[in-house]
């Protein structure tokens, strides 16, 4: 029941804070804008004023794509580098956004409007949240070890080449296990950040250890909450991406409409991220008081 209450609380909190989702979307779009210009430059360098560039609008011109991949190596290398650098920077910026959201969830509109609350939390918690990233190696390392151990077991199960189909299905098991572990670690990191904010603690490592213990003790509830929101996110994504796939993107307006739907999708995901924070904070508040 705690889980269901927390789920609806999270959704409610997200609905009450459209600005939070908007800020997440703005950050996402700002980083993506750089990629757009670099990608646009790479495509233009490769195809320029060629008729092959026209084709890209009307159909998938595999020849043009092949030439794009095999031709301007420098431009594509630059694009890949930009993507990796921006990804790294975005991960560094993310603690800022987590801090702002949690601050406003715990102390709504303290001392003014949402913006004031959000940015004060962003600055106040940034360094502590940033330290959570390297400290989380204590979780990633055992998760990786667990994965490789399981991988060995699965290897042994699928070692007989005559059981070819089993080997194929075990690939799905591997992917599912990897995703489960990634989500588990990320969920623990969520609770660690909540712990830091609620207790005004300074030890990232201590918060992670506490959060790991908390998640293990409340494994059913935390997982149900996490995957419940995950399914909600998937449902919305399916609707938006389904709508997008209905549009034949063979004209500039149609392409633009498709891109707008993508932005709506990113906005939806941003809202869900806010809901995650709200729901997990609520779950923490309801259940963690008994845990020292």
């Amino acid at each position: 029941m705690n889980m269901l209450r927390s789920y609806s609380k999270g959704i409610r909190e997200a609905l009450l804070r459209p600005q939070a989702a908007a800020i997440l979307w703005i950050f996402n779009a700002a980083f993506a804008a750089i990629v757009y210009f670099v990608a646009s430059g790479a495509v233009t360098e490769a195809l320029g004023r060629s008729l092959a560039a026209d084709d890209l609008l009307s159909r998938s011109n595999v020849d043009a794509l092949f030439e794009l991949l095999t031709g301007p190596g420098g431009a594509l290398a630059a694009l890949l580098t930009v993507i990796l650098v921006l990804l790294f920077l975005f991960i560094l910026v993310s603690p800022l956004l987590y801090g702002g959201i949690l601050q406003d969830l715990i102390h709504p509109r303290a001392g003014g409007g949402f913006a004031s609350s959000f940015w004060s939390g962003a600055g106040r918690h940034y360094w502590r949240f940033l330290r959570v990233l390297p400290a989380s190696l204590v979780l990633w390392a055992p998760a990786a070890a667990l994965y490789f151990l399981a991988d060995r077991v699965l290897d042994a199960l699928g070692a007989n080449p005559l059981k070819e189909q089993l080997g194929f299905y075990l690939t799905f098991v591997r992917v599912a296990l990897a995703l489960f572990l990634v989500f588990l670690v990320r969920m623990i990191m969520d609770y660690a950040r909540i712990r830091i904010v609620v207790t005004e603690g300074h030890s990232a490592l201590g918060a992670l250890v506490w959060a790991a213990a908390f998640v293990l003790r409340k494994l059913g509830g935390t997982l149900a909450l996490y995957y419940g929101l995950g399914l909600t996110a998937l449902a919305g994504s399916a609707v938006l991406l389904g709508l997008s796939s209905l549009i034949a993107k063979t004209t500039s307006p149609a392409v633009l409409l498709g891109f707008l739907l993508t932005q709506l999708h990113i906005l939806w995901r941003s809202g869900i991220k806010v809901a995650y924070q709200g729901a997990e904070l609520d779950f923490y508040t309801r259940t963690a008081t008994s845990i020292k």
Partner: protein
Amino acid sequence: MRKSPLFLVAAVIALMSPARASLSRQIVRYDIQVRLAPETKSIQGREVLSWLNDADVPVSELRFHLYLNAFKNNRSTFMKESGGSHRGFKRDEENWGSIDVTRIQIKDGADLTPTLEFVQPDDRNPDDQTVARVVLPSAVKPQESVVLVIEFAAKLPRVFARSGFSGDFFMIGQWFPKIGVWSKGQWNCHQYHAHSEFFADFGTFNVEITAPERFVIGATGRRTAERKNPDGTRTLTYVQEDVHDFAWTACPDFVEYRERFALADPAVDTEMIFLIHRAHLNSKDRYVRSLRQGLEFYSRHYGPYPYGTITLVDPAPGGTAAGGMEYPTLFTSMTTSYMPAGVRMPEMVTIHEFGHGYWYGIVGSNEFEEAWLDEGINSYSEAKAMAQYYGPQASLIDYGPLRVSDIQYQRLSVIGSGRFDPILRNSWEYLNGGSYSLNVYSKASLMLLTLERYLGQETMDKIMKTYYERWKFRHPTSADFVQAAEDASGQDLKWFFDQALNSPDKLDYAVGSLASEEVDLAAGLFNGKLVTPPGAKGKGGPAVVYRNEVVIVRKGEWIVPQDILIVLEGGQTIRETWDGRDRYKRFVTFGPRRLDYAQIDPDNRWLIDADFSNNSMRLKPRPGGPRKLALKVTAWFQTLLSLAGI
């Protein structure tokens, strides 16, 4: 060598020859008994080989392929060239392969075993034992035969390249002492290389295979006899005329299917035999359909399939390294038990490997020295067949949004690779395996597809039929293909083949620049008369004339004639031609309309062009296409950010 026994043997062989007219010159006849010992992964054999000296000089030594010795250690030429891996499969350090000739003698005559020695004609690698020679006590005279009795024992490697075993699956190729080809006064008997292994004379094979009863057997040729033995084994006899090699396979988990294939025109009647591993029975229909397509396509386009059987072998899971290989009247395809229908790998491999039966099997080209005559022509044929049966746009992959044709795939491997080697070169002299593959398979195929577009489908069909008819059951060279092409087309094509076969250069023409500028019309005093620009009818203003300039550049080394399409605003078109020789050519036109775009090779004849994108240029760019792609990349990145960060 004594004269009288040889004459006697020749006479006996002549008497034993079948009454039917041979399709090929019968240089060899092999009568082999072989026994498989699955527990030790080994075979033991006895071979009676008759070899006819078809040349006009006496021959005093014989050379043999002992190709299982390629797997004997890590210093054989094959292992050195391949690095011990093949198509991503690694050698097994505990299961080497080898072949020992325990006795070789002239039938009822001298024991040649003491004279047997290994030779390395290609690279002088003393550790390579894939070619051996024996010295005859007397030379075999022209048009005489020698009959040898050879006893041998072989250990099979765990399969990582073509031959060997995996569990109870055995693919047994290159397994017996096989005589080389006496050609131009010397032995053409190459070592086993990473990328080539086939060149032999035509003849007849009569092979008795003994294996435990539980094994399902398949082999080159037709099964003519079967008997059970008291020791729990059975012996199957296979016979095939007019072939130059023999391979066989054994596995208890094969399920055998037989179907007839018949065509009225041209007349074909053959039995298709499918040996499909239990794990892959869900691919049966795909195998059957694609083999039927291969038989139909090759019979109609090149010549009727001449043999009574064709056997498709589906390697066991774990034995995939034996897949995708050709032998006379038998080949290995490949699949997995979860192959999506839109990924046409089993179909492509089946058609390709069956097709080798024509371009390596019937037309006996020399894979060591001119591999493109087999792989290149066959890749061309395969691409044509795949396009005919699965559509030209997505003949290879039609899976979700991904649609790739066989031809596009071949082109990708050519344009994405360095240009270091020509198509025509000894197989072991290429820079590396990648360079061999792209030249011998893809570039050679693109060369033929380009020639087809240049000459037209009808002429190309005539070329291929001429080449096949002229060289079936013989040993052609590249020069013979060029000659066939020139004869069939009635054109001098040396300019084309010289560039295509003998040079690593590329073909790349581009629209270098476009310009469209208003011309200052004559105005003022000319010879004392005032000249005023004519007014545009009905509009009152001066008429506008544009100077439209198109510069075409030759970026590659190949020189080919080019068509150029110039399109003006409003759709008016101008077609120009250029011999393509200079480094650039400027085309200038004057008129009332501005240039819209220019395009080289508008009919897309030069498929081997390295870059299609630079074949056209607009005066004013249209950003829609690049914008769409850039937005797509942006959307992917946004999703990535959303997954990785907050």
